[in-house]
């Protein structure tokens, strides 16, 4: 089960990076997120898996698809030419080095529990009830900060995406 979900997640991730049309990239990301939700279930995080499907693969990806359709996701050449192409190849090398470094750091961390299936957990582990208890008791301040962050983001999005009719008309007068 792990290998099926991991292969799905990797294929989705590679699809996001390599597909030329942004629309297909978004669809590949949806597949990636669903595979990740299966992995979350394997890690006994039922509530996070459900939130992943509903919030990410549902709501956020619909937003992405809408904006991609609005902007018009034209095909773009993957390879750049000249100096930018060299920078792109350097980026690939850097990403490979990043993977090697993180893997070495994890494998060399001498955490004994890494090679086990994890600690013994009670049946309620990862359930909505436990997450809710933690959020409202132990992590109340991060919870409130997150809700405030969401409010700020919503206001910022409205400010960013509204039509600046007045400003554009002013600029038009100056130019003409």
């Amino acid at each position, binding site marked *: 089960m792990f290998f099926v979900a991991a292969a799905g997640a990797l294929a989705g991730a590679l699809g996001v990076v390599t597909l030329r049309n942004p629309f297909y990239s978004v669809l590949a990301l949806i597949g990636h997120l669903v595979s990740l939700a299966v*992995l979350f279930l394997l890690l006994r995080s039922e509530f996070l898996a459900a939130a992943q499907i509903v919030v990410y693969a549902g709501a956020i990806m619909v937003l992405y698809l809408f904006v*991609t359709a609005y902007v018009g996701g034209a095909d773009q050449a993957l390879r750049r030419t000249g100096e930018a192409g060299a920078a792109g190849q350097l980026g690939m090398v*850097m990403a490979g080095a990043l993977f090697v470094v993180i893997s070495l750091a994890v494998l060399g961390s001498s955490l004994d529990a890494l090679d086990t299936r994890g600690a013994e957990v009670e049946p309620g582990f990862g359930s909505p009830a436990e997450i809710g208890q*933690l959020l409202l008791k132990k992590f109340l301040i991060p919870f409130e900060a997150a809700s405030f962050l969401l409010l700020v983001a919503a206001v910022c999005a409205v400010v960013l995406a509204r039509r600046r009719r007045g400003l554009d008309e002013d600029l038009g007068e100056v130019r003409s």
Partner: protein
Amino acid sequence: MDVVWFVVLSALIFAIGAAGVMTRRSPLVILLCTELMLNACNLALLSFARMHGSGDGQVFALIVMVVAACEVVIGLGLIVAIYRKRMPIDVDKLSELRG
């Protein structure tokens, strides 16, 4: 399945996302690749939460999801604003701060 498999998988997904951020030109795809990186972090957080058998990591992953949602909203708002200004949707050409 051992926890180390999950952690190495999350490192691989993170590296793929980083490669996408560094090589792609469309801001939309760059945002998608940051999503990949945030999800890789979530996977690592959840595997460590499983390793310790505590729910703290899961709450952390939930907060990361909230931050990711905020980032998506701001990023897509910026892309729509750039599109409204009739500027090219290409990070190589958007190299000036003033619009």
